[in-house]
């Protein structure tokens, strides 16, 4: 078992990539088969992730030298405890979101666009995310980032509506900037240390001059901080994520920022273990938490509000990284796993809310708790989890981080602990506002969109004059056709044109959401073993030796 385990390591990258290629070749034919293929590929990745999770925990980090070119010449894919956990959690939520999106695509009766564009791109995104988690050298990490980013550009602007192009422009330019920074840092690292293999860098970087090392560290951190949306590099996120379709926003919010956090954990522990910028990271974490949640409090649109809480809670993970202790890192790892699930679940529920209530604006919604108790429960549980109500996993993760902070005992750490308590309370406040407005209060007469309303995004190509007449094309106007004649609404379709609000929600969408909510509860139920695993993962990260000896069994030369 142990000697074949490492052959599984490349599969989370290869399988989705291969399936994506196959689907691009098939095109839009064989719709049922294609959906089955996507689900099968991601289920397989999930299974592989679980096997890796247990295997790596038992037998130590697994390494594959791609093409049998030994490190440092070849490309190494490494799965240690952290990578295996991230791959597993990401596979679980991407599978959930895929099922949800299939349900949505079927419900909206748009057969062509999801199969031709969404499914292959989505699988490529998954491959890029897995590649980033498993990358054993800095350049491969860059390639992983690029794969997932390019896929995310397509997913974010899917359908090419006015709002998405507007949001996409910001997103693409900011992401490009972070990629360029990362590429510069990779080049400089190669110039300084003569290698980009992470394990070899871990040995060689302490030998480069300290100031040069600091420059490399800060450049890498800046590149990852843009991806992870750490304040003050977070301004792009709340503006770009909410315009995408619900499944896309969900997977972006859950996964993409966490890839940045993962890269920060990896480089901070493996390459720069001396913690020279820890204080800077602490301040960044504090600012991220507080500024993010204050932004959330000011919002009335649920999607925007959730985007701001996402930014805010990245601060917790950065806090754990900045502490640098075993407890801090374990807390950060647990929090990452918890937050991926909960945040994704919340965005999926928001998609259900939109479908049921016809809007995601708190001012328009009301009375959903009575209209649709199921959606209310599906929202309530992850929302309380996010706010950190005991005994849910959000509480456990925050508690772990705060304990680690108190253990550190510096005034700055205590400030961070106070900041995280404040952020937690404000999160509860923001979430409670959503609950009160959208679910509990009696709906204002005439304010609630009736079931059967068609939320529509009209494209200007429907009017032939405007396609090439710049003066006339004023962008697509979203409008609603309903007896009540409401004027504006936004539909987040997957490339289709309309969503019909209804009282009966598609089973696949509800099922996928419920699955993610249950997964979030599983983090609470199996908190003991999971936190044990995170502790071991953190110990492994801090020891560094297991990783290095796994890549170079004969020692680095």
């Amino acid at each position, binding site marked *: 078992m142990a000697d074949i385990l490492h052959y599984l390591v490349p599969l989370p990258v290869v399988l989705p990539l291969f399936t994506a290629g196959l689907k691009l070749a098939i095109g839009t034919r064989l719709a049922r088969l294609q959906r089955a293929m996507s689900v099968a590929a991601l289920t397989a990745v999930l299974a592989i992730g679980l096997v890796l999770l247990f295997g790596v925990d038992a037998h130590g980090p697994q390494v594959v030298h791609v093409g049998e070119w030994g490190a440092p010449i070849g490309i190494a894919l490494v799965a240690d405890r952290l990578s295996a956990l991230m791959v597993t959690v990401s596979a679980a939520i991407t599978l959930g979101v895929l099922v949800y999106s299939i349900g949505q695509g079927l419900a909206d009766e748009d057969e062509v666009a999801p199969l031709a564009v969404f499914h292959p791109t989505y699988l490529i995104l998954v491959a890029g995310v897995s590649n980033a988690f498993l990358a054993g050298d800095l*350049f491969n990490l860059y390639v992983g980032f690029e794969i997932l980013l*390019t896929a995310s550009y397509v997913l974010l602007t899917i359908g090419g509506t006015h709002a998405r192009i507007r949001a996409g422009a910001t997103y693409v330019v900011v992401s*490009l900037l972070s990629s360029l920074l990362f*590429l510069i840092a990779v080049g*400089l690292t*190669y110039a300084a240390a003569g290698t980009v293999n992470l394990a070899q860098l871990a040995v060689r970087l302490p030998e480069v001059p300290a100031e040069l090392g600091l420059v490399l560290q800060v450049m890498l951190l800046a590149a990852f901080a843009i991806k992870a949306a750490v304040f003050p590099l977070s301004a792009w996120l709340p*503006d770009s994520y909410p315009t995408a379709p619900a499944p896309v926003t969900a997977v972006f919010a859950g996964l993409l920022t966490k890839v940045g956090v993962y890269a920060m954990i990896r480089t901070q522990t493996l390459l720069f273990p001396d913690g020279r910028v820890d204080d800077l990271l602490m301040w960044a974490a504090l600012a991220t938490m507080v500024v993010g949640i204050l932004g959330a409090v000011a*919002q009335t649109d649920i999607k925007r509000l959730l985007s701001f809480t996402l930014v805010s809670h990245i601060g917790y993970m950065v806090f754990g990284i900045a502490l640098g202790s075993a407890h801090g890192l374990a807390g950060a790892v647990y929090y990452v796993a918890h937050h991926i699930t909960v945040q994704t679940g919340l965005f999926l529920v928001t998609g259900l809310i939109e479908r049921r209530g016809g809007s995601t604006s708190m001012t328009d919604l009301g009375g959903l708790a009575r209209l649709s108790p199921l959606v209310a429960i599906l929202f309530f549980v992850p929302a309380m989890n996010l706010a950190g109500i005991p005994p849910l996993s959000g509480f456990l993760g925050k508690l772990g981080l705060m304990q680690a902070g108190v253990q550190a005992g510096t005034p700055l750490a205590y400030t961070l602990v106070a900041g995280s308590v404040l952020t937690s309370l404000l999160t509860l406040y923001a979430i409670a506002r959503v609950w009160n407005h959208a679910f509990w209060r009696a709906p204002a007469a005439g304010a609630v969109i009736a079931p059967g309303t068609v939320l529509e995004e009209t494209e200007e190509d429907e009017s032939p004059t405007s396609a090439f007449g710049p003066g006339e094309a*004023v962008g697509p106007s979203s409008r609603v056709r309903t007896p009540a004649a409401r004027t504006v609404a936004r539909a987040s379709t997957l490339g289709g044109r309309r969503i019909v609000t209804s009282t009966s929600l598609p089973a696949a969408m509800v099922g996928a959401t419920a699955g993610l909510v249950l997964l979030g509860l599983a983090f609470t139920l199996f908190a003991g073993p999971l936190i044990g695993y995170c502790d071991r993962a953190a110990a492994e990260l801090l020891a560094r030796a297991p990783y290095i000896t796994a890549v170079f069994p004969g020692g680095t030369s």
Partner: protein
Amino acid sequence: MNDTPTLLLVAVTGVLVAVGVMLLLERSLTRVLLGVILMGNGINLMILSTGGTAGGPPLLGLTPESEMADPLPQAMILTAIVITLGVTAFLLAMAYRSWQLQGNDDVQDDAEDRRIAFGGGRRELRRQIRRQRRELRAEIRTQRADLRDRMAAQDRREAAERAALRSRMLAADRELRASLRAGGRGGAGADDAEVAQRIRDARQARQDSVADLRREVESCREGLREHRRIDRETEREMRRELRRRVRAQKRRLHTAIRAERERLARAEDSDLQGSD
């Protein structure tokens, strides 16, 4: 093998990246795209120069190992070029779509920024209201001070009148006493009745004048009270007026905010819908 990069490559890298950054800061997506391409090329050159000086092709058996160029940077550059190509294609498509939709390829305002700018307008209105309120308060304060001054003047006048009254009474007494002494020296006995009569007269006169003065003071007080009442009423009236004006201002402010919101919602369609 010489590992020092050539200065030319470093200089070209610097210039390309600098120009790239400048173009990245532009609003037009096409310029941003050009900036990305230039920066990408600059960074590729930088990676190339990290491999040291040029050498022979890195093929075993063809070039002696000591004369080979470092192959790894070249492999990295190839990958980076492919990635830049893909991203360039995507950005071009997006710029074209943007031009299709709105007639230019400018990067649009951030919705949040716009809201903050709009909030600036709201703040301006609020400042205006606050200023008006301050002005009205100042007016009330001056009126009150005026009232106080007038009351103090009245008090002073009263005191002066009382003092004048007292001095007149004293003068009358003195006169009386003087006339008594004069009477006692002149015809004693015979004039007694006359003297008593005069004293009575004097007293009567004094009492009359005191009563007059009292009446006068009383009427003054009455006037003062009246005055105060009127002042209070004026003040109340002014406060009411102030409140009314503040309320009206607020109403106007809210209507303006609502109108602005609606305008923005209409102008921005889905972007700001429900997000305010």
